[in-house]
């Protein structure tokens, strides 16, 4: 009888290796372990045996049953796995095909991106936003800033006039006057905005452009503080490897005045077309606030000191992205805007 049992076991295990499909497996299962299966058949013959043999056979057949049940279960899992694998193969994609975009992405103008970067760098340095109007009183745009009527330096900034008292602001500096007159010092302000100059449009001039003004008022603010602040600012925006230099200049509203150059972002300072071979690019004008301006705005220049700087956002944008013609920034060609 044991031989018969062994035969069933071996046959079943052998057949199991051949089974590829679930249906086949279930057939095998019932043909061996089912109600009329071969192993069940052996158990039915046990009645004819004596007690001792019966126990022996019972034990042996139970062991075979367990073994086969386990083998079938394993095979079942294996088949399921194979079937899933097949299904996966069927569903395999070329994962490099382009993705489907529900909504093609839009773009922020490069100037907005640059503006945010500069602004956020300054916010991180303790500056707070402030703003003033684009159409401005002559008094704030010029007179309060130490540029009285007929001052020759007024010719530095060709002005659009609305009437003899109102102009399109030529810089964001009138906001300095507004801040000095309304905000309680000490303070650090960043003031972005559009400005206007009578400049015919060409590759490097635009009658409308964007500036960002910085103004710091405190006690004992020095030229060296201005230098330190701008160094830190430049490194935040342009990276730690960029060099800066500050050279003397003139603005009626600052004294001493300076212009700040950074080492050329295109050639790294070796000299190229963008920096006109100098290795340097001018990015902003700045200085210690002129005492007349403080006094005109109601602050005692011997008690309070200040520095200010004005950054050309258009220019910095051009430098950052290597845009060689400022007109592109106002033409709104989608092929341009789509690049940023």
């Amino acid at each position, binding site marked *: 009888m044991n031989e018969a049992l062994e035969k069933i076991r071996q046959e079943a295990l052998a057949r199991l290796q051949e089974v590829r499909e679930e249906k086949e497996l279930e057939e095998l299962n019932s043909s061996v372990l089912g109600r009329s299966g071969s192993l069940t058949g052996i158990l039915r013959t046990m009645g004819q045996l004596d007690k001792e043999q019966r126990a022996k056979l019972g034990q042996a057949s139970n062991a075979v049953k367990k073994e086969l049940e386990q083998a079938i279960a394993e095979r079942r899992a294996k088949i399921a796995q194979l079937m899933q694998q097949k299904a996966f193969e069927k569903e395999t994609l070329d994962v490099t095909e382009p993705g489907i975009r529900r909504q093609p992405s*839009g773009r922020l103008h490069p100037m907005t991106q640059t503006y945010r970067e500069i602004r956020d760098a300054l916010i991180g340095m303790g500056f707070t936003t402030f703003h003033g*109007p684009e159409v401005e009183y002559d008094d704030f745009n010029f007179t309060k800033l130490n540029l009285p009527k007929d001052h020759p330096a007024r010719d530095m900034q060709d002005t*659009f*006039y609305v009437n003899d008292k109102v102009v399109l602001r030529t810089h964001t500096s009138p906001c300095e006057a507004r801040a000095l007159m309304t905000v309680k010092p000490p303070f*650090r302000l960043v003031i972005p905005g559009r400005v206007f100059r009578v400049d015919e449009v060409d590759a490097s001039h635009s009658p409308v452009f964007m500036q960002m003004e910085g103004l710091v008022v405190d006690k004992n603010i020095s*030229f060296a503080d201005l230098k330190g602040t701008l160094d830190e600012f430049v490194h935040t925006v342009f990276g730690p490897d960029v060099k800066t230099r500050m050279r003397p200049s*003139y603005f009626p509203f600052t004294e001493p005045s300076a212009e700040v150059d950074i080492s050329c972002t295109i050639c790294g300072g070796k000299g190229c077309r963008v920096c006109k071979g100098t290795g340097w690019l001018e990015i902003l004008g700045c200085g210690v606030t002129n005492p007349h301006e403080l006094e005109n705005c109601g602050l005692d220049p011997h008690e309070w000191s200040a520095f200010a700087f004005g950054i050309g956002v258009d220019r910095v944008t051009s430098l950052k992205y290597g845009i060689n013609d400022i007109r592109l920034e*106002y033409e709104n060609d989608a092929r341009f805007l789509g690049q940023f």
Partner: protein
Amino acid sequence: MKLPLSWLKDYVEWNVTPDEFVEKLMWRGFECAGYEGEMDGITNVVVGKIVALRKHEDSDHLQICTIDVGAEEPLCIVTGATNVFEGALVPVAMDGAHLTEGIVIKPTVMRGVKSYGMLCSGHELGLSEADYPGAEFNGIMILHGEHPLGQSIQEAVGMDDIVFDIELTPNRADCQSIIGMCREAAAALGQRFKEPTIRHIEGEGDIHDYASVTVENTELCPRYTARVVTDLNIEPSPAWMQKRLRAVGMRPINNIVDITNYVLVEYGHPMHAFDLACVKDGNIVVRNAYENEIVTTLDGKERAVTPDMLLIADPEKGVGIAGVMGGLNSEITADTKATLFEAAAFKGSSIRATTRKLHHVTDAAARFIKGVEPVNAMLAEERAIELVDELHAGKVIGGTIDVCNADISEHIIYTDIAHINRILHTEIAGEDMAKMLATINIDAKAAGDKLKVRIPHFRTDIEDGLEADWDIAEEVARLYGYYNIKPSLMYGDTFAGKLGADYVFEDKVKDEMAAQGCYEMYNYNFTGPAALDALLLDKDSEKRQCVKILNPFGEDQSLMRTTLIMGMLDSLKRNQGRKTGHDRFFEVGNVHFDNNDSLPEERKMLGLLFSGENESYFTLKGAVEQLLEKFNLFGKVEFAAGGSEFYQPGRKAVMSIGKEQVGELGAVHPNVLKSWGIDGRVYFAEIDMNKLFAHTGAKRTYKPISKFPKVARDLAIVVDNKVTAAEVSRVISQTKLKVILDDVELFDVYRGVGIPEGKKSMAYSFTLRSEDHTLVDEEIQAAVGSIIRALETRLKAELRS
């Protein structure tokens, strides 16, 4: 400001290269736009000697020259010129030489003979007769005298000067002169400035026998000096003077006029020479112009002058416009026998106003506008007379007329050394400051904690007043070197930086629009009357209340925009023309409304411009709704039919919150698009950013998520065409229900077969639920029933079967 190196060398020891000079000046605050050699662009042209000359066998007019250019082998050059001869020294353009008009020399074969270069005419070298005698001869330029063979042509003709083009800041009027610039240049080079001394020419006789000066307006003319020269010998000025004038861009005229121009350049002081015979009684009157007066200036133009302008006149007539241009009637001519040299100080602001009115700025006027100072007037006068003497131009008459109402006294200021160091964050000793200042002729001395500074007459930018400490601090910083000042970080209070809530809002709006596929535009603020008309705006439309610019580029840019649409349409047109293929744009920008006397009202607007086949009024509205949703404002904003004239009737809506209108949207009127030449349909929305912002910030509070299931029901009603979706929503939301109505969605609107004419079917889906139990059928039916009854009674709706 043009500074010829040859002129600089009169006053400064030159010890650097041009590039080093440019950098040293830069550190002193003088930016150099560039420098040019006199014959820049001409290269590789050298002196050669014609050692042999023979006729070309195959040509009637060509000659073959053997030329020695100092090299081992002589060159063979074929020329068509007839004025060459053996032994002549000529300019030889070698292989690769550059000449004027972009000519580059290459060896060529001329009728079978190889020619290794070219002999040049003066014209080909860009030289005129004035540059080099014989240069304008029609043939090869024959060089005079002896020259080493192979010498550069620049050296040979004495045209090897370099002219620096220096950009001056407006505060340094004193450097608008060779003397002033050389003073700074010397200090920048660490050299001593060789200050010129003017030889006083006493002259003979008494000026008062020849001339007199009456200054009627001493405010506009603080100083007027005059000297007289008789027995004039009018002739061209000497070559050295002509060369220098030309180097700085001036045209030599005659010795007397050239002297005034030379002094203008050298001392930065404009002068004028009158023909004394044309000044009645020799009496110069400095007065305001009369009403309706006309002065014919040296350029032959009749100029109408007005009483606010200052004239130089004689007792009968104007002989010049002060500080701007002399009169034709008193011009120096070949016949002039006696002249009066004027060196005066006129008030810059007056000259500025005059030039603006006359639309005419001369070199002289530009200097007066920048500011000339009265002490310099006398120096200029003295220098001119010295030159008259040097050039033997006439007989100098004794005496000087000097009508001086200016403060020419010396100003001494006491600046605070510690304060200067505080401004700069430096520790420079007073003595060291004094030493540095001395290098630019500022006499200073440390006295205790003060620095006593004698302001030189030419430094009108240094103030005897509030600014003094800062003025001197700037000079000290400049001389000490900005690069030597160590950067420091601000001490004192620390600040928490803050991005204002309005800025945060703007950022979010822009980010949302970009997320919705829009590209951001930046358009100019300018527009014009034609654009307003093209937008079909009513005569009394608010959008015609534009701020007008007095001095615009043109009529089409003479107004400030009152809406973003015109700029955005301009840009869309450009994109269509270029087939860029993008359909969604947005812009955030200010618009302005004229407010009569005070500043205009400034509104920050968001503009959205959609176009193309995939867009519709509803895609635009959807974008707006999503934007509103972002700020929790969707339910608050009501849309109602209406809006500006540039939208298509029936397809436009105004957006309001309560009674306040916050925006508009709609399909752009086809006639507007036609004016812009734009194809297809275009949709535009414009939202007032600040108004919208004012309604943001409502707190979002969490609503507990119901544990009980939602029930969805659909409902289709038939209503009159005029009934709007907004009305239906209002009725539904106002219906009192015992259950909670979560979502109401209009998912279909249908007109046509099966629906009576003039009516439409609207299909809604609802979601109903309860906070505390699962809804039973009766409740659901009761709720739907209430809604239906409300729609029936208030909107005459019928249930669609």
